[in-house]
């Protein structure tokens, strides 16, 4: 099922976004929501839960407020339906239903209402999702399993369903898994990029046999290849999933040559840069075009993008470069409401990580986690136990964690 084509006589629908301005501490709440967590501040001294976000405890004035995952259970106290919001983003999608939910934690929150949640009074479950400005939005649901593939809840997702998706390197284990997962999630089209037509990669033929899949030539290390493909499908692409990466295990003072390290950079960092510049503007231009508008650019990184692994020093450097660039992408794509989804797995269970100790995440699990991130609108994805542990320690104290890894030599 594909959406009807835009009438070329009509003006294109430009993307608008909800109000993005937040205080610094409220932005912290968004950072948690970006990782899929509804967090509220809790006082480190008196345990009082706080909302809206603040700088000192409303009860004891302590500055020691800590973000903690919040219990979303609460009671819906009141509802309204807004017919004439001022902001263009809301006006274009009016009416909006909002309500006040009293959380069991003792704070009242204003939230968007899921269409299956009726009038007050009613039990409700509050969750935090990113809105199209990339900021945390609280949403009251009838229960935790509520369907987001409905209006207006889909605004808070980047769902692959019905969308046209480019998987940049479909011939890697992760790429194959990604093609299959996107098809299974209901993608209208999956363009499977392949750099080299020769050779047979196990599982590849099966993945591209799906009727939604079309194989297209794409070599991210070749600028002409990238711009040529962007000219062909850039104006139709809704999601780019960049699986193109190149890595060889090598320590900082190891035997690996500079050429290998350069090849890592060429694919992982410069490849991303080429893709972003070739596809980004077209994605942004189509970010409000119909129900299956352009919505996301997915980067398949590694947790070593955040903190370097001494055992993979050159790989970490390329990942860090690409991640740094992705932060710039996120800032530039925000104005059109596009999400930059960064996936940070621990070691993936594939050939170049043979010597990594388990647990390693299977490519299929990695792809499923990516689909789930798109479906739930998460921007920072930590799909496996190693990734989650590294992320937790990095959040807690990045400087200490870097020293810890250096001392462990891992």
């Amino acid at each position: 099922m594909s959406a009807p084509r835009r009438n070329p006589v009509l003006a294109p629908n430009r993307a608008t976004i909800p109000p993005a301005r937040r205080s610094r501490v409220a932005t912290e709440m968004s950072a948690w929501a970006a990782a899929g967590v509804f967090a509220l501040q809790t006082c480190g001294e008196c345990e009082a839960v706080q909302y809206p976000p603040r700088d000192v405890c409303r009860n004891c004035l302590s500055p020691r407020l800590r973000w903690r995952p919040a219990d979303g259970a609460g009671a819906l106290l009141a509802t309204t339906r807004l017919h004439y919001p001022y902001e263009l983003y809301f006006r274009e999608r009016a009416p909006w239903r909002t309500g006040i939910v009293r959380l069991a934690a003792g704070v009242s929150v204003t939230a968007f209402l899921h269409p299956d949640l009726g009038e007050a009074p009613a039990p409700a479950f509050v969750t935090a999702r990113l809105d199209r400005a990339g900021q945390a939005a609280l949403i009251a649901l009838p229960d935790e399993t509520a369907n987001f593939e409905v209006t207006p809840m889909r605004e808070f997702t980047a769902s692959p369903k019905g969308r046209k998706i480019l998987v940049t390197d479909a011939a890697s284990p992760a790429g194959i898994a990604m093609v299959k997962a996107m098809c299974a999630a209901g993608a209208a089209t999956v363009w499977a990029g392949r750099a080299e037509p020769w050779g047979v990669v196990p599982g590849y033929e099966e993945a591209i046999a799906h009727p939604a899949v079309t194989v297209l030539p794409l070599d991210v290390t070749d600028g002409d290849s990238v711009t040529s493909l962007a000219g062909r499908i850039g104006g139709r692409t809704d999601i780019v999933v960049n699986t193109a990466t190149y890595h060889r295990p090598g320590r900082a003072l190891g035997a690996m040559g500079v050429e290998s390290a350069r090849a890592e950079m060429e694919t992982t960092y410069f490849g991303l840069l080429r893709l972003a510049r070739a596809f980004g503007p077209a994605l942004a231009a189509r970010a409000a075009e119909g129900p299956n508008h352009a919505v996301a650019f997915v980067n398949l990184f590694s947790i070593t993008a955040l903190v370097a692994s001494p055992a993979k020093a050159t790989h970490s450097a390329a990942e860090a470069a690409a991640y740094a660039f992705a932060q710039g992408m996120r800032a530039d794509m925000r104005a059109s409401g596009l999400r930059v989804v960064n996936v940070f797995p621990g070691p993936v269970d594939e050939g170049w990580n043979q010597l990594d100790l388990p647990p390693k995440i299977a490519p299929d699990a990695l792809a499923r986690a990516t689909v789930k991130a798109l479906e739930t609108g998460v921007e920072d994805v930590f799909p496996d136990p190693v990734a989650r542990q590294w992320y937790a320690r990095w959040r807690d104290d990045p400087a200490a964690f870097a020293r810890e890894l250096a001392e462990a030599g891992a």
Partner: protein
Amino acid sequence: MRRLGYEGVVVAAPVSVPYARFSTRTAHAFLGELLRTILARTGLAKARIDGLCVASFSLAPDSAVALTEHFGISARWVDHLPFGGASAILALHRAARAVQAGDAEIVACIAGDTNDPDAFRRSTAAFSRFGQDAAYPYGASGTNATVALLTDHYMRTYGVEAEDLGRICVAQRANAGPYPNALLRSAMTMEDYLASRPVAEPLRLFDCVMPCAGAEGFIVTTRETAEREGLPYANLLAVMERHNAYPDDPIQMRGGWAEGRDDLYAQAGMTPAAIDFAELYDDYPVVVAMQLEDLGFCDKGEAKAFLRAHDLTTAGSFPVNTCGGQLSAGQAGAAGGFLGIVEAVRQLTDTAEGAAVPKADIGLVTGFGMINYDRGLTAGAAILAR
């Protein structure tokens, strides 16, 4: 400790600068016209104004002190009040104490705002930090969304019907009919009210004030000065203000009036039964209904019955917002909260510009403001008498 009363403090020179839906003039221009009119009507020389109290949303980057230079006033007491709809009561409160203490003799309390077509969106987007972080990103446009939620909860809790709140709007429109400065003066029936389009359910168009440009002001001085200058005045009997009352209420069902009213009536030496007319802050009818309860005219949840039993028009059994209030006159930004005091003093000095209340000896005036996140934080009230 018993609070000091306001013996000898009076309010005079009530002035409304005509409203306009939109204006190309600045807040400074409206405030300047207001002050000029106050001086012209009182015959006071500008140099006699030694205290200045200002409220405005659209004066940025200026504040009250900048106006002393702009207007050429050498004040010895100045205050700038960013309290929205409660600014007038707070201005009266502060000016009264200044006059009483001799810190100033004649304080001009002035409020004014301009309005352009996008001004309201801009001012609400960054009204407060909590609002910016936790209300505005949810489609709130001004206070409509927040008050819609309070209204929904209030109506549901007390079984209030749309017609009950409509009585307030319909009566105030009738009061606005003879008041030339009201922007909305054409007759409105209950059918008209009920048929008005939904804005933020359950709020209808006629539940919401119309933002506009304009100015309102008065002077606070001593009875001796007022009499010496031949100024008609109203006596100030009592004032209360309360901020962030009942913070543990899950949703607002009452304002700080409920906490401060005993003190207010005690200071005035009277009960609610003595009030002849009330200028109740009316950004939305539910706020009027809550005040009827919180200020002791009926019990909590009984405003519905009170409204069914009373006629709120100027000639009625309980006159409320006797020149139409903000719901019919328009809400001229920070001046909206000043309309109540201005109108009350006009009624008490027999200078009503619309219909006069037949027996207007004691008037109650209120203010309400600062929807910082999910409720109005500041409630104020004053009792004025001949």
